[in-house]
């Protein structure tokens, strides 16, 4: 039987119809709206990715293979410090977003630099923890628990690293071009990303560290 000739049919067309509900602000604004929703949908997909890693850790988290357990490994003081860095960075980013809204490029940049410092602090504490675990032999290869632990916490750490690099680039862009509509949109996208990472961290410290140490 000959294959049906699909080219003869009209190709499917996919459209996203955007209502121009802000007539006053013309095209610029409609474009911004689409980008923010798209970025939000990306975050939701990222949320599913983390959800799967959490599910894996829930299943494998107690398979120690005669190796160390969370109570042997984790130093909760360090995790509390990392949590403090991330929580503080959320509010400093909030202040940056408010100043962006009021077109204070200098004050906004100041708060973004503070946020970057907090992010760097978090990454430094994570780096100390991971190198410590690696040196005492608690590598991802040691047990199923450690595999899922490294994968979950490592993925979150890579996101924070990515967000920090994005933040550096954003600061350069603001320095070069000022608070253009494009830069404002980027600040708001990174704002969502940054707050989202803080939200994921709540799950990590509750589920992996605090519950892990107790169980």
């Amino acid at each position, binding site marked *: 039987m000959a294959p049906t000739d699909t080219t003869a049919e009209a190709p499917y067309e996919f459209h996203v119809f955007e209502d121009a509900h802000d007539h006053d602000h013309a095209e610029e604004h409609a474009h911004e709206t689409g980008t923010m929703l798209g970025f939000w949908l990306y975050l939701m997909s990222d*949320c599913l990715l983390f959800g799967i890693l959490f599910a894996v850790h829930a299943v494998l988290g107690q398979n120690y293979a005669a190796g160390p357990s969370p109570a042997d490994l984790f130093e909760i003081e360090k995790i509390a410090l990392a949590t403090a860095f991330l929580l503080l960075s959320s509010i400093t980013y909030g202040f940056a977003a408010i100043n962006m809204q009021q077109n204070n490029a200098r004050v906004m940049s100041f708060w973004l630099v503070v946020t970057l410092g907090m992010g760097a602090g978090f990454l430094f504490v994570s780096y100390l923890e991971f190198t410590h675990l690696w040196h005492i032999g608690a590598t991802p290869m040691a047990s199923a628990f450690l595999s899922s632990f490294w994968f979950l916490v490592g993925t979150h750490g890579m996101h924070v690293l990515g967000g920090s690099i994005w933040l550096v680039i954003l600061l350069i862009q603001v320095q070069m071009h000022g608070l253009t509509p494009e830069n404002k949109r980027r600040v708001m996208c990174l704002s969502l990303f940054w707050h989202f990472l803080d939200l994921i961290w709540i799950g990590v410290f*509750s589920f992996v560290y605090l519950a892990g140490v107790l169980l």
Partner: protein
Amino acid sequence: MSADNSTHGSYRSYIIGFVLSVILTVIPFYVVMAEVEMDILWAMLIIFGLGAVQILVHVQYFLHVSVGAEDGWQFMSLIFTAVVLVIILAGSIWVMFHLHENMMPAHDTIERVRELQ
């Protein structure tokens, strides 16, 4: 999420969110770090209960999700994601714990020496 002021929050809303987050973070950390004497079930309830509340606080005060934003698509996609997450998490845990229960212990695989200690 469009550029009007109400959805971007104010100093007040960020500070409310921050203070609530600090409270909701400190309590579970205190329970674990001070080794408070309590039933393990209660401790878990505190850790996960307050964690869930803190996630809602972040969604409200930091992410500024509202039912009306983006013609409802933002909120709808959030609810969709939450439903999928509940299915993935509850389903995985439910199925895998029954699997563990029904498996015979594999004695020879447990013989790995505690070389990490």
